[in-house]
């Protein structure tokens, strides 16, 4: 059972909906894919490993003997950090879910504005059709702050239907 959230906090509300999307999409027949997450983790952990190597050799060897190696490691760390930033900003963007149902691939981007009880979702399919919809959060949360996943599922299902019926 999900935990109640503070419905006056749009960031908390948005995070709760985002976390429930994989289950909702699974019930709608979609299988989640993790290419973007895996790529991000790969770049991120490569960056952290470079820093760890730099730290270890700094502790094991005399500074003057390893300056060249440290320069290479610092340069590599900087390049990987830029790639990671670029990946998050321009590749992953605000995509919180990607999944497929047979040959159909769907990506969900979500966002919100501070102090507005509106959850915005953009659906993108593999035919490059997009649909942006807004959800008033009181439609899927009850007064105690519990997410009504069945209502959310119905809303997402409606958006998917609208997207599939949409002409490019």
């Amino acid at each position, binding site marked *: 059972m999900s935990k109640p959230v503070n419905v006056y906090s749009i960031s908390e509300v948005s995070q709760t909906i985002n976390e429930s999307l994989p289950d909702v999409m699974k019930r709608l027949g979609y299988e989640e894919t993790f290419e973007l997450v895996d790529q991000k983790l790969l770049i991120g952990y490569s960056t952290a490993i470079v*820093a760890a190597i730099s730290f270890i050799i700094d502790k094991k060897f005399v500074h003057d003997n390893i300056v060249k190696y440290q320069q290479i490691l610092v340069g590599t760390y900087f390049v990987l950090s830029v790639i990671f930033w670029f990946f998050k900003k321009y590749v992953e963007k605000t995509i919180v879910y990607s999944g497929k149902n047979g040959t159909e691939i769907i990506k969900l981007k979500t966002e919100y504005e501070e102090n507005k009880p509106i959850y915005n979702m953009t659906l993108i399919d593999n035919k490059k059709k997009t649909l942006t919809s807004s959800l008033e959060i009181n439609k899927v949360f009850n007064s105690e702050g519990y997410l009504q996943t069945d209502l959310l599922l119905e809303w997402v299902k409606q958006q998917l239907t609208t997207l599939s019926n949409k002409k490019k």
Partner: protein
Amino acid sequence: MNIRAELAKFLNLCFVFSSAYMFWQTYSIVADTHSPIVVVLSGSMEPAFQRGDILFLWNRNKYSNVGDIVVYEVEDKQIPIVHRVLREHHSVKDNGKQLLLTKGDNNAGNDIPLYAGKKTYLNKNKDIVGTVKGYLPQLGYVTIWVAENKYAKFALLGFLAITSLLGDE
């Protein structure tokens, strides 16, 4: 448990430490010193520097000038010393070798008794860690507190652990 979500959370923690460390390492390379940031541990440079001041060093200068505040290390002693250059001699022939005599502003005498191996001067290239180019007052006091109080170290680690656990919630 979603392993990817946990890995992403742990990655954020890795970034906190790695970015701080790599900033320090980058500064180390740019300033050409193995220890570019030091904390003042004694009152020997008062009133210029107090215990707990954080000092930023630079070691790309060929010579130190009389009046510069330098950080040096004595062989077989781990703790760097922050004192002012009192006298200097440099040779234009001997590959620019420079010898320095230092003294703490708040000390009565010079540092010769502190130098290792009965040396009477410091070698700029071998002994000097860097010249002080900037400082932040008092902010390093937490490191002194942790180093001098064994319970403080555990308190700090406990605080960090609790903060990270609550943060995950």
